[in-house]
């Protein structure tokens, strides 16, 4: 298990945050996603098999950009 912190660009409404949560949750091995519109940040708890690229793709698929993962 690992915990990743994302910085996300382009969110401006509440449904943006829930869309990102929905999209990232679909990745296999992702356990918990929480996106904060206020902080423009998200946390992802996932198995080690989940790659950063997968998460970035899932976010960009719904129209937002991950500017940082740590």
């Amino acid at each position: 298990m690992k915990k990743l912190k994302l910085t996300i660009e382009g969110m401006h409404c509440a449904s943006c945050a829930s869309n990102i949560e929905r999209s990232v949750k679909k990745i296999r091995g992702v356990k918990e996603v929480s996106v904060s519109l206020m902080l423009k940040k998200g946390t992802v708890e996932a198995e080690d098999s989940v790659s950063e690229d997968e998460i970035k793709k899932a976010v960009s698929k719904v129209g937002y950009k991950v500017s940082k993962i740590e």
Partner: protein
Amino acid sequence: MNHKHHKEKIEDAEITSWKKKLFGSWILTIPIAIIMLSERIFNFPLIEMPYSIITILVIGFPVIFIFGWDTIKGGMRGLFTFYFNMDSLISLGTVVAYLTGIFYFTGFVQDYSGVAAMIMAFFTTGKYVEAKARGRASQEIKKLLELGAKKARILRANKEIEIPIEEVKIGDILIIKPGEKIPTDGIVVKGESSVDESMVTGESLPVEKLKGSNVIGATINQDGILYIKATKVGKDTFLAHIIELVENAQSSKVPIQRLADKITSVFVPIILILAITTFIGWFFFSGDLSKAIGVGVAVLVIACPCALGLATPTALMVGSGMGAKRGILIRKGEAIQTMKEVKIIIFDKTGTITKGKPEVTDIKSLIPEKELLTLSASLEKLSEHPIAKSIVNKANIKNYKKVTGFKVLRGRGVEGKIGKDAIIIGNQTLMNERKINLSKIIDSIEKFEEEGKTTMVVAKNNKILGVMAVADSIKEDSKEAIRRLNKNKYRTVMITGDNERTAKAIAKQVGIKEVIANVLPEDKAKMVEKLQKNCMVAFIGDGINDAPALKQSNVGIAIGTGTDIAIEAGDIVLARGSLIGVVQAINLSKATFRKIKQNLFWAFAYNVIAIPLAVGGVLHPVVAEIAMALSSITVVTNANLLRRKKL
């Protein structure tokens, strides 16, 4: 450090970008509005039909497709990928309205293209105001992020040089002149000064620092020059921990928000279906295609999940920011909601009500006092307990006796052998267990305990040698804090390992009526559980020894001790030791939760009233859009009003 600046930039960029869109769209929308009004309201068309429509289509195009491009793009993507968002509604509404202007020339429909531009202009205005208000909501947190020092003055080869903070390493000797910010956490190696720690711990009085004192990064050195050795840097500093706590709290969920979140996630698709149904219904029953389009567009643009989605996070942001400023760190959003149900507040004694720095105040010895202290200190030297330390300090000897078979008897005392003599030091429980006769000193024991002191009896080979009284002075504002809690009808309870008499004496001094004494450290959690049977319980403790009890309670408030904060224990963490922080934390939690409830009420009420009005065809699309923008602005502004609350 870099990511902090980065985040700043994103936020400022968002506001600037909405500002540009706002100006751009209004410069073009105002002429459109004038043309429309002159024609429809004043009946004095500035431009004759159908040229007016062509003009509006031309001027309106950039409003929607250039200034509104991000919205249109995001919205359309949402429509095609089934990840609908707020933009999907606005883009569909504006594009449909705009297209009516073109279809006007094929007949059948009234022109709504001007309305499209106005919707977009109001939408950008609303988003701009909302982004600004959201920025205000996070101002305290932003201040916290900016608090860290950027540079440090370091001593290298006997020369003072300034280096960027990122280059400071553990062990570096840093020099801080009066008025300067202490670059990172450290320990004073030379110099004396007072330091303003208010920005980090909320402590308003300057704190005296001398050789050996711990200092916190980002606090301000006031009057002397300090030389400190860096002990923590980067992500391990006190400030970094506080920031992490606050950020984590923001992404934790408050249970009451769950319903709103559920609605938010299905909101847009439901509105899309509703808008289409409304359009079909109106067209079917009235046969008026134009009216049906107008009503459909109004439904699309009036609905906004934002007010619902922002209700909790904005209030939580303002609340946790207000807390952070005062050294109150809310770790879990849930605690805010639970707090209002709490009826019983349990305080740990040592280190919570008292300073946690016990001192030996009285000795009643049957042998020479010096001898008693030497024996005791030799044993207690091997223990970590604060009382043990106070005895060692009191003895203040250099040559300790050799101790064999040393054992800590948890919650009771210690034992060990010096030479052939079996020595035990401990409380009355321990002495009773060993059947040691206390009659020679029982008067002294009782007298000390009446004074709220903890007594430690010393015995050699099961014979009494004497008793030492240890007092732990009460924190200055414990009494005031408990008075306020009692006034607010909380049941205050003190829990301690001390015996009944000592505990009651302390409790009486601070105004606590209920005492649970003689509790072993590991049993504190069980006692909390017992009290939880009837109602919610908050536990206040130091977070190190009391971690299980903090966890067991419904709301655990961990009290910080100087430069360390127990991050894992406690739902709320107080950076400062004062119990006034407990009162403030309770008030803040309640006020924040009230704000959340208000916000959710407004958000629900808005949607429940506005959507049916739009469906009923009562609202003009532009009015609908204005109402929508106002709904989310109201929620964010209301959250910002939390700041008026006095804690």
